[in-house]
């Protein structure tokens, strides 16, 4: 029984989890022996389990950016479906953009989290091959973004807060997507979400792939799971451009500073949501629970504010991002001389201000 309780890390070990895998195989060997030969190895097993916990702590507190990307893409990582099942009561999906179609890469619907009514907008990558193909591996098309906005407008009308769960490698790069205005669909979402008159909470639960993530990622609060990532470009894409070599993704991941810690430091993420020991995929229930608690707490906080104050704060927050990454150089000597000379000429009245009367076109 003890074995079953701490059944963490069965299969799907990542390359940097060798020691974890070793301990797991030792534990299962001892378990097998005790059942076959009837010898009690429980003390040894407990010791191994304690060592494994320590090992998890050691590895996961020092993940590199590239390792984080691998955890975020882990095939067993909880997807939108698990969050909807475990966290949202009476979920009812609302389909379609009322214009072109229904994009399964973005799922919208009504429901409750805790006691709060919410509109959920989430990206789904799909678990098995069939589902993956159906939802295009989580790469939305324009109709997905337009559906998201249509449902958010519906929520706005009935004063229902919006929660978005972000998990996409990026918006789909396809001929149809371009023909139907992928860029325009995302752009309109950014503009409209910045002034939607209900609270919006955005949470990156896995992959935050560029504009495709941002397209449902503008709101009052932005949180990111501990081992999720959020980036302007995929590490592979960045490597292909800068190193002209897609296999340099590891270096690109480091350079892009895409981990939750860095995003918090840069002021992009307001909060980091802790993941269970060894990553969300080792304990889906705890991961979802942490997200649920964050949403309940944050909703309570946001709902206390008047909507005008909320929007003002939202704008201030968006407006401030990156301002600290700019600075003013002092004018160099020649530039200064030109400036002084110009102001002297203007003062002397040698230059007349330009006419503002319209001229015939």
């Amino acid at each position, binding site marked *: 029984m003890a074995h079953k309780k701490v059944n963490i890390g069965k299969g799907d070990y990542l390359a940097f989890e060798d020691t974890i895998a070793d301990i797991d195989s030792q534990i299962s060997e001892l378990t097998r022996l005790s059942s076959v030969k009837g010898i009690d190895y429980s003390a040894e097993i407990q010791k191994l389990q304690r060592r494994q916990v320590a090992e998890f702590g050691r590895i996961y507190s020092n993940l590199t950016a590239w390792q984080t990307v691998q955890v975020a893409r882990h095939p067993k990582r909880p997807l939108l479906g698990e969050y909807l099942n475990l966290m949202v009561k009476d979920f009812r999906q609302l389909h379609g953009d009322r214009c072109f179609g229904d994009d399964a890469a973005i799922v919208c619907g009504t429901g409750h989290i805790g006691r709060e009514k919410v509109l959920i907008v989430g990206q789904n990558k799909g678990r098995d091959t069939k589902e993956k193909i159906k939802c295009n591996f989580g790469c939305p098309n324009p109709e997905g973004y337009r559906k998201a906005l249509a449902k958010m407008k519906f929520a706005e009308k009935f004063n229902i807060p919006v929660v978005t769960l972000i998990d996409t490698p990026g918006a789909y790069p396809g001929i149809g997507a371009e023909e139907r205005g992928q860029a325009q669909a995302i752009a309109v979402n950014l503009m409209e979400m910045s002034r939607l008159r209900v609270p919006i909470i955005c949470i990156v639960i896995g992959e935050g792939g560029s504009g495709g993530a941002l397209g449902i990622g503008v709101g009052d609060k932005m949180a990111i799971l501990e081992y999720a990532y959020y980036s302007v470009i995929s590490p592979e894409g960045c490597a292909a451009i800068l190193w002209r070599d897609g296999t340099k993704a590891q270096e690109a991941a480091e350079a892009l500073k895409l981990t939750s810690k860095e995003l918090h430091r840069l002021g992009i993420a307001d909060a980091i949501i802790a993941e269970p020991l060894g990553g969300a995929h080792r304990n889906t229930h705890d991961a979802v629970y942490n997200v649920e608690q964050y949403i309940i707490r944050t909703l309570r906080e946001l709902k206390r504010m008047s909507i005008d104050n909320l929007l003002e704060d939202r704008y201030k927050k968006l407006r401030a991002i990156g301002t600290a990454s700019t600075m003013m150089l002092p004018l160099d000597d020649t530039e200064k001389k030109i400036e002084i000379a110009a102001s002297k000429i203007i003062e002397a009245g040698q230059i007349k201000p330009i006419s*503002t009367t319209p001229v015939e076109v």
Partner: protein
Amino acid sequence: MIKTMAKKAKASWDGFSLKPRRQMPEGLWIKCPGCEKLLFKKAVTDNQDICPECNYHFRIGAADRIKYLVDEGSFEQYLTQMVTTDPLNFHFRGTTYKERAKASEKVSAGKEAILVGKAFIKGRPVMLAVMDFNYLGGSMGAVVGEKLCVAIEKAIVESLPLVVVSSTGGARMHEGVVSLAQMAKTSAALAKLDDHGGLFISVLTDPTTGGVTASFAMLGDVIIAEPGALIGFAGARTIYETIKVELPKGFQRAEFLLEHGFVDMIVHRKELRSEIARLIDYCGKNQT
């Protein structure tokens, strides 16, 4: 089969690249990519960088753009000294982002990929922002976002029409998510302008792609494109590598976007001034 196709696609690849494309090589004569005729270079530059034979619009930087667009000497620039702090301390292949930025300054019109300021177009005052492809591929980082937001806010305060000329490869990788967030930041500022009833004319020139297209460039009250300009979200190469299907002729060109309903009009470079002036008059702003 696929391999040879890929090779072919690479050879005929004419999309966005971070490497500055030398469309205007040194020397007296240039070959027009449109009609392939050999042209006297001065005849082209005297013609606003348009082929006199076939109207091919050459890609131009911010300095030429401003020269062709605004009333002579009327551009009063703001924030010329604003530069990036390099928030990620980005380095790659033995070089740094700061070094690349510095090198870009030698060929660009200013110290960043956008120039903002007040100008007059046919006597009408406008708040103008012009992106410069010569500076790191016209990419949007924190400085581009900040300068554009200042321009938008000034347009609101001074009740001026906003004209933004885009020429860009998209978000600037070297600033990571900070640059991605500029998409949201500029779009939010444009929502404010919209709430105030301000006019925003977005001019898409060759090339306008990626995160800029997916934010402010597509949010104009009126969207104008230059003939033949490359406009899109994903790079054609990325699309080709994803779907492995030959891209249709004229894909992601201004005419393609017009056909699919994403630009209001295609305007010849020489007509741009009068079209913008006409729109400003039509929308009734700043009539004293």
